[in-house]
């Protein structure tokens, strides 16, 4: 049996299903936090996070459901947080945009575009000083590379040869604005390759391909000590923020979506497993198990208490 591909699928399914559950409940208006959905990018998040060790570290953006779930394995805390409940690690202070689980190597996510990138570089510096072998991976979008701080951070990581992997999750959009209206160059990969940085580019939605690529990048970081840059393409299924489709708003076409949908990372991986002769019933059972866990933790989150007013001024300093 192909254990790797099954494990990858489990994570893909978990991520996808978690967001489907969110969609089902979002209009109940109990999750009062802006949702930036991961749908479409699951292969990147799962492929990379699966290649990382438990104590490797990850930083994300407001669009971090997938990487959070893939990195941490947590579900219970996740739902409690987006429901804003006292049972969550952050007690609802962060919400969907600010997930954080340091013990599981998820070091936080920021809703200011590009602002976690230098933090990741500093975290990598600390790891290097500690000699703990940990790798830091920071995820960001193709919009983040517009920001000066991306360039400053890239330069510093290359200069100091820090063990950090920059992952640009390129959906060609910043909110609704295409790259063509934002970038005065053809290819970010070829620019970054002129820095002291290894670059890997990939457009696949196959999680195994991403996983292998991540292994290569991790190897390169461990080998050289210096950074890598992953330029990975995906298609954002839903609107920028919110849980609905938005193909009618005119800035992109449903046809494009349909093209990507044909190579949907989750379905594709399921098909691959079946081709590899994993029984469909077995998969169904696995999926049901995951779904049960998700639904239960969601219910637990729904019925959990809110934090008390005293929480507001705690942990400020």
């Amino acid at each position, binding site marked *: 049996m192909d254990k790797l591909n099954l494990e990858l699928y489990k994570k893909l399914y978990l991520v996808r299903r978690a967001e489907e559950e969110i969609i089902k409940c979002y209009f109940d208006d109990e999750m009062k936090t802006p949702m930036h959905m991961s749908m479409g990018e699951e292969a990147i998040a799962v492929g990379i996070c699966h290649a990382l060790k438990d104590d490797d570290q990850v930083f994300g953006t407001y669009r971090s459901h997938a990487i959070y779930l893939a990195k941490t394995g947590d579900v219970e805390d996740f739902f409690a947080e987006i429901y804003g409940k006292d049972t969550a690690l952050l007690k609802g202070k*962060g919400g969907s945009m600010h997930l954080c689980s340091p013990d599981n190597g998820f070091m936080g996510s920021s809703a200011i575009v590009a602002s976690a990138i230098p933090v990741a570089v500093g975290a990598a510096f600390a790891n290097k000083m500690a000699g703990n072998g940990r790798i830091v991976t920071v995820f960001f979008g193709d919009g983040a590379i517009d920001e000066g701080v991306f360039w400053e951070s890239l330069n510093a990581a290359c200069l100091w040869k820090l063990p950090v992997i920059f992952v640009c999750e390129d959906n060609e959009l*910043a909110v609704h604005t295409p790259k063509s209206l934002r970038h005065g160059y053809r290819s970010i990969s070829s620019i970054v390759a002129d820095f002291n940085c290894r670059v890997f580019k990939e457009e696949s939605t196959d999680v195994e391909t991403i996983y292998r690529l991540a292994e290569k990048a991790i190897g390169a970081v461990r080998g050289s000590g210096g950074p890598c840059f992953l330029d990975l393409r995906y298609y954002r299924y839903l609107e920028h923020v919110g849980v609905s489709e938005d193909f009618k708003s005119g800035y992109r076409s449903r046809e494009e979506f349909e093209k990507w949908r044909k190579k949907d990372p989750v379905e594709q991986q399921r098909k691959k497993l079946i081709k590899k002769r994993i029984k469909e019933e077995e998969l169904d059972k696995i999926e049901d198990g995951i779904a049960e866990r998700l639904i239960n933790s969601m219910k637990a989150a729904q019925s959990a208490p809110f934090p008390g007013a005293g929480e507001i001024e705690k942990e400020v300093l």
Partner: protein
Amino acid sequence: MGGSRKISYCKAINEALIQEMERDPRVFTYGIGVPDHKRIFGSTDGLVERFGPERCFDTPLSEDAMTGFGLGAAINGLRPIHVHMRVDFMLLAMNQLANMVSSYRYASAGELSVPMVIRAIIGRGWGQSFQHSKTMHSCFAHIPGLRVVMPTTPAEAKGMLIASIREDSPVIFIEHRWLYYAEDEVPEEPFTLPLEKAAVLRPGKDITIVATSWMNIEALEAADILNKRHGVSAEIVNARAIAPLDDGVIVDSARKTGHCIVADNDWLHCGFSAEIAARVSEKCFGSLKSPVSRIGFAPAPCPCTRPLENCFYPSAVNIIKTAEKTLKLKEADLSEEVFYSYEHKFKGPF
């Protein structure tokens, strides 16, 4: 002269933009998302269709450079309007704002001027947390060379935006997201309002409430209830000008009533509320019957979850309770009151 009609704050901004861009071909509007289909919550509707992509355009996500860009365009004769969906993003441009935009005119001894407007949206959205909830007017106001205004009513939105666009020095124009739906009488024709003066929003005689932006709405509610429950007549002074600030209206009101509460849409420490409290305390020394009190955000980053968010943002209830304390009234039982709680209406994301 045309008449006036009820339009929303959002429409008032939009009308000001269209009328000024029509009048003056040097004016252009730009910023992240400005021409996209959401049109900055509708406020930039129709601009790209009317004026084309040369005068209404999107930008890379580069707040710092885009601010310097506006400055460069302004000293070379254009009149840029830069839009930020969130004031928090202006923090990336703080260097351009405080080291460049604010001093370029001074640095050229008036040879160059900086007719630039920076529109920034603030306001409690909906679970926005600590990176999408600041106001920052006091920090901008602290820097000489920057004008800062915060219109509250639709008429102010239009009149002050037109005045800002026609002004030859940089203006930071701060709009509260929740005010976008407020409707009121607004003249059809272009008109201007002063950029340095506060205005009495509701006359009264017993206590002065100085409020900024959305806090005026909370103050109006508080004033109604104070009147109903205590027979107290509160005067609300809308502090729509933050810097420079002609404090005459504020000081006159406080001197008249002898009591003053400042309700700012911001944190208190080193904020605009401190400036008002300091000035009122100094200039009304001897006429005040009670110390000036201040109301603002809780001293913490803004949390996401609703119950804590409710503790973070000041409201009519805080104003009422502070007024009761100031005037030494018995605390009214507010449990029966229905507050205009906008957050119940507002569905995410922002």
